[in-house]
């Protein structure tokens, strides 16, 4: 009889690492999404070009390769990263590139009449963006941000390849030590699924809260 409780502890430790990676990666992705998304809408060619280059590059190359590059190639250039730092960097930059297009699309979806109201009220470009356009656009972004966050959660599994002890890594450890494949992988499948459900649920309730009043029904 295998001592499953000890192995379960191992897997839960992995879950914590996965959650940590997901949270930190999401924060970086969110920052990059707004920087690059707003960059693409900039009046200045250089900013637009920079943002476009970032988005196309990180969408157009594999996240495996990006992660390996961050962990194995950057040290050759003198930048030493811990596995966690390399993981957050690769995940955040990769998912941020997708989310940047979400930011751009959402900002562009806000009608011209809102921009015109801003001009008529003499708000500056940034004031209008900050107080009028972005708050409305954010609501448009939220559902797709939820998708992006789940993508990021699932992509965290790649960090097991650079020996970071996340869920997938720990499942492999358990499998190696017990010879059992079904139990550890079924367990982490369920844990990934529960984490994804939590994200969905969190984003949906945030969406509901922010949409309050916009449809005329005051809750």
């Amino acid at each position, binding site marked *: 009889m295998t001592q499953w409780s000890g192995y379960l502890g191992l897997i839960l430790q992995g879950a914590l690492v996965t959650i940590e990676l997901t949270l930190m990666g999401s924060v970086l992705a969110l920052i990059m999404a707004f920087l690059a998304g707003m960059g693409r809408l900039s009046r200045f060619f250089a900013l637009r070009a920079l943002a476009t280059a970032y988005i196309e590059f990180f969408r157009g190359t594999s996240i495996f390769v990006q992660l390996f590059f961050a962990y194995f190639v950057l040290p050759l250039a003198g930048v030493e990263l811990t596995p966690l730092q390399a993981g957050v960097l690769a995940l955040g930059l990769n998912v941020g590139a997708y989310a940047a297009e979400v930011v751009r699309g959402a900002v562009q979806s806000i009608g011209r009449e809102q921009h015109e109201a801003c001009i008529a*009220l003499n708000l500056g470009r940034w004031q209008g963006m900050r107080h009028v356009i972005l708050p409305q656009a954010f609501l448009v972004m939220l559902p797709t941000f939820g998708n992006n966050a789940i993508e990021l959660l699932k992509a965290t599994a790649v960090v097991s390849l650079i020996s970071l002890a996340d869920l997938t890594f720990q499942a492999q450890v358990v499998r190696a030590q017990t010879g059992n494949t079904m139990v550890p992988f079924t367990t982490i499948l369920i844990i990934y699924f529960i984490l994804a459900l939590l994200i969905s649920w969190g984003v949906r309730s945030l969406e509901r809260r922010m949409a309050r009043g916009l449809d005329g029904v005051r809750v």
Partner: protein
Amino acid sequence: MSATAPIIKIDGISKSFGSFKVLDGLSMQVMPREKLALIGPSGSGKTTILRILMTLERIDGGHIQVDGEQLYHMERNGQLLPAYERHLAKMRQKIGMVFQLFNLFPHKSVIDNVTLAPMLTKGMPRAAAEKRAMDLLEMVGMADKAKAMPAQLSGGQKQRVAIARALALQPKIMLFDEVTSALDPELVEEVLNVLWRLCAETDMTMLLVTHEMGFAHDFADRVLFFDRGKIVEEGKPDEIFRHPKQERTQGFLKKIIAAGHRV
């Protein structure tokens, strides 16, 4: 003739959208405190004039003076140069606009719609901005809805809030772009009543693009009839509505009356 200078002086402006020339060498003047009605068929350029004055559209040629200063140009060493954004921002302080579709900010409550611009553009403290907002909402009869969200309001109520929002910046000139056109007939009156109040209680210059001919007749000091980017006829409301001289004016008014508008 009064000796005061016009508050708006439009001098030979032209504006094209693609190959369509909306305005072609248009000139007109507006005196301080004057209430001006701009009427005419759609596409005649009357709304474009308001949008140009609000700097929502740029002109292709000509000059505009507002309150003694160039709108789209800056005077530097005796030369007229295209205006910077900062100059435009300064000029916009003199002008307010109310839109056909209200353009309220849907994510902000009624009072926040009104206080936003004074707080951001004039650095007014929240308490002072809210006090003024409540006074203005009181004037447009919307004080009891201060905490409501725009989506909870009727079209007429939204438009009255939009008027209060524009007034909060205390412009010298107010532009009203078909402010009742999007409203159900029974809601038109409440908005027009607010305009009457503004007329009685303030000394703002008001430019009104409208299809409410009866209102234009009673309200305006002067009526301009536009067609194809030109002023075809202008004069006192009685002259324009009762005794139009130009054939095109007569034709337009006939069509409007046939459509059931009171003159």
